[in-house]
């Protein structure tokens, strides 16, 4: 890993949502500054509602920051583009396309030749373990398999950065464990910079080089943890447990804050 090369740099990113008829206005991100290096696997973790997904969407270019900026290779991100790939928790596949067509969607948009699409698709089917499913429609696949298709689709057009929004959050425990193992291998073959949003400490520790802990909103980066352990990681390794305890402790404080604020809001409403 080349630590000197900064891939993503967030500079004092702030995000405020204006009030709508259904929701009050809220400042999701107070001031987020962070660096992610080339080839690094970075996890964003924090209590629910802390704005970690919002931050990811700003990196993706889906949302605009209220202040501050995010640089990708030194250029300010203003809109979505194929130098990034996205994987959502809900898979968000195109149900009218087969597995194969879903995977090559990005390549076809970029007018790649049929032969290029096919060979790239074959590679990805191989890497993601989807061989034999290329003609299936998404609804015939299990959640885990659908998420593999979503990962293959995001990697197909070879983006520099892979953005993942709680990608294993909707999967059952066994499937999730298997997906994490397989995804480590995928990541090691593809060697991409990954920004990975999760609420699972265990997931972040199994996967990431660096873990950014978000405080409750309006959120800042509360702490940064480096996980310098070889993969695949052993959850009973004392070093693993030590970082896990530290993160859980720090996270609990934020969850506590969140609970207090929400309880107060509820009480205020009752009055």
């Amino acid at each position, binding site marked *: 890993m080349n630590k000197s090369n900064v891939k993503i740099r967030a500079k004092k990113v702030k995000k405020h949502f204006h009030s709508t008829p259904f929701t009050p206005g809220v400042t999701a991100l107070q001031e987020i500054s962070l660096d992610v290096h080339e080839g690094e696997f970075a996890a964003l973790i924090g209590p629910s509602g802390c704005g970690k997904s919002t931050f990811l969407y700003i990196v*993706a*270019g889906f949302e605009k920051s209220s202040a501050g900026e995010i640089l990708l290779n030194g250029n300010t991100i203003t809109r979505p583009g194929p130098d990034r790939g996205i994987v*959502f928790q809900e898979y968000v596949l195109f*149900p*009218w396309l087969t597995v194969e067509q879903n995977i090559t969607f990005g390549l076809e*948009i970029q007018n790649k030749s049929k032969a290029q699409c096919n060979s790239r698709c074959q590679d990805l089917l191989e890497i993601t373990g989807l061989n034999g499913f290329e003609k299936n429609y998404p609804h015939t696949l299990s959640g885990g398999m659908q998420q593999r298709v979503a990962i293959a689709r995001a990697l197909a057009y070879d983006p520099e950065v892979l953005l993942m929004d709680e990608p294993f959050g909707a999967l059952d425990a066994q499937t999730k464990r298997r997906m994490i193992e397989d995804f480590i291998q995928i990541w090691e073959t593809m060697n991409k910079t990954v920004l990975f949003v999760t609420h699972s400490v265990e997931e972040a520790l199994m996967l990431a080089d660096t873990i950014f802990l978000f405080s409750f909103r309006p959120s800042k980066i509360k702490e940064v943890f480096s996980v310098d352990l070889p993969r695949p990681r052993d959850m009973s390794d004392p070093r693993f447990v030590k970082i896990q305890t530290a993160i859980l402790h720090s996270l609990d404080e934020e969850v506590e804050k969140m609970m207090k604020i929400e309880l107060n809001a509820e009480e205020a409403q009752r009055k």
Partner: protein
Amino acid sequence: MGKSINENVKKMISFIIPVITVLVCWEVVSRLEIVNPILLPPPTTIISHAIILLSPSDVGGVSFFLERHVAISFARILVGYLIAAVTCTILGLLMGINNAVFKFFNPLITLIMPIPSLAWVPVVILWLGLGNMTIVFVTMIASIFPIIYNSAAGVRSMTIKHIWAAEIMGATRKTIFLKVLLPGAMPYIIAGHKLALGRAWRALVATEMVVATGYGLGYLIFEARTFMDTETMYAGIGMIALLGLIIEKGFFGSIEKKTVEKWGMSRSLE
């Protein structure tokens, strides 16, 4: 393959059983003269009468060739529905993707929609006269609203994340429309067209009864009444049901099998 033929036969049988049951009861009620058989002729008589009407021999009265009435009704509904299908699908899709278009047309549609299509008939007669144009026009009005509403709703049914997923891969607005919104709207569009054609049928038959052009199933049924020709009336009604079935199962059924059912976007009820 053999299995799927078997499945189809099973489906057909499960469809026919309730129909046959009702027809048999009807036959019995009519044959035993529990109900006056002139008012309610037995189905077998109606079917054999329909076959006579379909055969190329003039039996007098208004009936002459049943197939001619059917063909003319069919042509009218086809023209009326197709005009609405093309224009209103486009309008609905535009309303789905563009807020300004939606804001302009939505109030107009909200106002016009509750008006029954038949309320237009007297006015349209004044404009277009007692002829095919009037019937086609009313059929078209009847088809408009479900198509517009469902096409617009279909476009809006695609989640923002589907659009984002395409955007990040570099899709232009045009590509997003053609490759994401349009196929994503298919279940809604198909449902809209089904409703539209159903409404068009009703408007057609009713308008044909009012605008007596001498042809059409509505005219046939209405005129047969003056001769107390109940067999022809029932034959005409039966024909409407049969044509509706062909459109529903044959046309829309096969489109749905090839699209939304295959994609798992809409579950088959069978």
